[in-house]
């Protein structure tokens, strides 16, 4: 099998005061290399918890997570930091560019810590920002900022791209462009892309859809006829 990610019987509990909240209840799924995966769920379903665990930002309460056959839930904090650095390319809902660095610097800054990286200028031209390398984030539109953020994630040449509601802060048209870019990245760079969203319509563009409800996996299915983003309306 070509499983790049294995989630096995993962539980996540949060204690707040006297009450214990069960955020993930026995969640298991597998993701193959090069897949475009949509993790779908309403707010509060447990999407963000999965993202935090996959991104090496939080620890499981029970169960195991394997990324490229490494059991990352056994990592100590420092190992997790290097895991995030080398394996994960993160795309945030609110872009999270460093405001004092221009587009090019933002991309180079993130990838400067990686050995096996892509050329920042080239990636930025690929996402259509070849002319705006020296603009600061405040001088760019939301869609442009998100494209810089995607370039930043890709330039690191990570194992997988984790995208948290990447279109959440964008209008319909720009959102579509961003998704198109993500699927291009998936195909051209052969990167595993995981998009976390509450937008059911996006399910059609994925290879695999993982539906989460109340901290449990409701359904996992493969799209045998996935649609081009241009054909999806919401």
């Amino acid at each position: 099998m070509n499983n790049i990610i294995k989630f096995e019987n993962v539980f996540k509990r949060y204690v707040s005061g006297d009450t214990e909240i069960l955020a993930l209840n026995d969640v298991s799924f597998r993701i193959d290399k090069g897949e475009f995966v949509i993790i779908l769920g309403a707010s509060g379903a447990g999407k963000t918890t999965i993202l935090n665990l996959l991104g090496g930002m939080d620890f499981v309460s029970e169960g195991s997570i394997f990324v490229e056959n490494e059991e990352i839930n056994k990592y100590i904090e420092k190992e997790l930091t290097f895991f995030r650095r080398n394996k994960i390319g993160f795309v945030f809902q609110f872009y999270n560019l460093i405001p004092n660095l221009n587009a090019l610097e933002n991309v180079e800054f993130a990838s400067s810590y990686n050995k096996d990286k892509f050329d920042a200028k080239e990636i930025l031209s690929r996402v259509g920002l070849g002319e705006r390398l020296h603009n600061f984030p405040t001088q760019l539109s939301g869609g442009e900022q998100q494209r810089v953020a995607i370039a930043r994630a890709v330039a690191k040449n990570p194992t997988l791209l984790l995208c948290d509601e990447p279109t959440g802060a964008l209008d319909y048209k720009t959102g579509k462009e961003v998704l198109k870019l993500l699927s291009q990245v998936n195909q051209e760079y052969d990167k595993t892309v995981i998009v976390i969203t509450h937008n059911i319509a996006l399910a059609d563009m994925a290879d695999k859809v993982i539906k989460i409800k109340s901290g449990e996996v409701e359904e996992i299915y493969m799209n045998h006829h996935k649609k081009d983003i241009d054909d999806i309306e919401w």
Partner: protein
Amino acid sequence: MKFLIKKFRKDILENIGQFTAISLVISIGIAFFVGLTYSYDTINESINDYYQEANLADISVSFLDVSKDDIDTIKEFEEVEDVQGRFLLEGRVSSDDTITMQSYSSNNSMNIPTLIDGDYPKTDDQIILDSEYVSNNNIKIGDLITVSIGNDQVDYELTVSGVFKSAEYIYYTDDNTIPVPNHTSYAVGIVEDNFFEKLGINYTQALINLSSNADDSELIDKIDSEFSTYLQSTAKEQNVSYQMVANKLESVKNLSVILPIVFIALAAVITSISMSRQIENQREQISVMRAFGISKFDIRVSFLQYPLFTALIGTIVGTIIGVVLFPKILISTLSVLFVFPSLSSVTYIHLSIIGFLVALIAGAIATRMSCRKILKEIPAQGMRPLPPRKAKNSIVERNQLIWNKIPYAYRIIFRNISMNKKRFWLSSIGIIFCVSIMIASIGIKYAFNHIVDTEFDLYRSYDVTATLNEPSFEDKNFKNKDTVEIADLFSVSPVTYNNENTVLNIVNKDTQSNHLYNRNGEEITINDSGIYVSEKFAEENSIGKKDTIELGFNSPVIENKDIEVEILDVYKSYTNQGFYGTFELLDKHDINYPVMSVHLTTSDDAESLKEELDDDPQFSHVTVKDTQKNEYLNASSSIDSLVLIMIAASILLAFTVIYNISSINIFEKRRDIATEKVLGLTLKEINRVIFVENIFLVAFSSIFGILLSYPMYIILCEFIASDEMAFPHSLNLMSIPIAILLTLVSTLITNSFLKRKVKRIDMVESLKGVE
């Protein structure tokens, strides 16, 4: 309102580090203000009480000899309210030590000694001794001591009946050449009048209290013409002890003004930076509260709690530190020089209240100003996030060659600075002050060591000073000991120039023991055609080379006389202000000035020469120069502790400035830091950037700090130096690296505190929207 108070308490608790830092800064300012002023008040009031209780005479007049009838005559002068005759005699005690013997009888009303143990002498074979001599020599009441007096050195056995301190003798020494009185080999003893009467001696002193509105100079003229035995008169204020105490108190008072001003101003700057950031960060909350209908007044009042509480805590802590620490340090160091009375406690509550009000008003103004802009906005607009500030290219970028070499993480620093220029400057002000105070303080310590070294190693090349039992008018050969290579004569005469009291140091023309250097550092060849003036005295009296001046002699050992002399050169001296002249010069003016001491250079060990000379009856005491030097260094402990306090305070301030500014920066950049964490930067990498940013701030501020340190040094020297002292005008350059190093160390320590703040930032922050 209750809700607002509660909310505000919570805000403070969340940022307890900053709250503590601001309270700390205020407490340092308050500690200096309350501590120094309180110490001054305590010493000053205790000493004034001491003077009052002792009823120090307005004038003391010395005579070669004055009878009881003469005293009665003086009593009849209209200027005199009260007069009291007194015996005064130098002698030896316990075979080796010097003693000043004076009389006291129970009907005396002036210069009353304070008995601290035992009884006043009741019979003519009893004596009371000064507390310091008693404790240094382990003498007990009831002990027998032998006092020898007069040229024939007749021995008298006396019983110690008590121990005293005296307002007349707060500072007393038998040797003006050393600044630290030696209370082990010099005593003051008080006996009954009978003791002297039995010896057949007359009074030598009249203590006089003037009647109101009486003119003292008229009285002195009367006495001078009436009595041929009149020698000199000293007003209370001219008394050595009185002057020394007044001088020192003056410098403590000066310090208690300048240092608190510096530190409170610094505290105000730091508080206002922190306050304004704190409030700006709550902008949206404030607007939400206003949308709820909470009045501007209530919001303002709730924010005023911050300066209120920081000022309150700062005042309490500062008062405690100030009242406990400062008097202890100051009094214990001043006690090297002075014998203080038991110190009465004075109030300091009024000082705390003044300090509190200053801190509160400064804090309130800062708060009010920060609130103003935000409260002006309409709530609907205030709830919307501020548009992000435009990033700006930094000046460094103009040089692409350098810029391209700077790692991305560090480029953020430069862009930050160019975006927040105002904050950068405000924070540098704090550090600039800290660095300059540190450099100046260390400079003073160096200067003091330099003073002692040059005075003792360069200006005085002899090994031993031997003071003659009594001034000698004849030529004597002091080179009669085998090991003595050089023997130079030396005297000090009180002189007046233009009504200013000072001294004339008298040496041989061809002296090899004392050296004078001019302003260019070249040695002056002392000749007998004129006198030399010290740089400080020359500047203060606007006199200089080639001026002819009139010097008045009012020494007890010769007749009063005025002479006209030319100033040949100006010499540099740090501790010896006044004039230098030669015996030969005075001879030319028909003054046969007696020799008071001899400066000796030995081919042998100085200590063994001292031992040999100690047995020689013509010397009253013999001092090894190196011992003098060490005592001088001991006297500097007051400077040491002051320097230490100032350095400690500056380090603490530097610490709080950096901590506060960095905390604000970290708080504002928490989203960026969370993002960097997600991107896989290690804590070490993130902390390093913050560290470099602080180092850059410190380095930048240090440049200005170094520039400011010189004027700071001159100001502090001005305040610290007493009348007889001059500090070198050049600042020892070593103080700069030491101060910078200390600042860097405090930056390092600050950063280890900041690490926790960075660590606490949750990566989940990065997932949230822009606030």
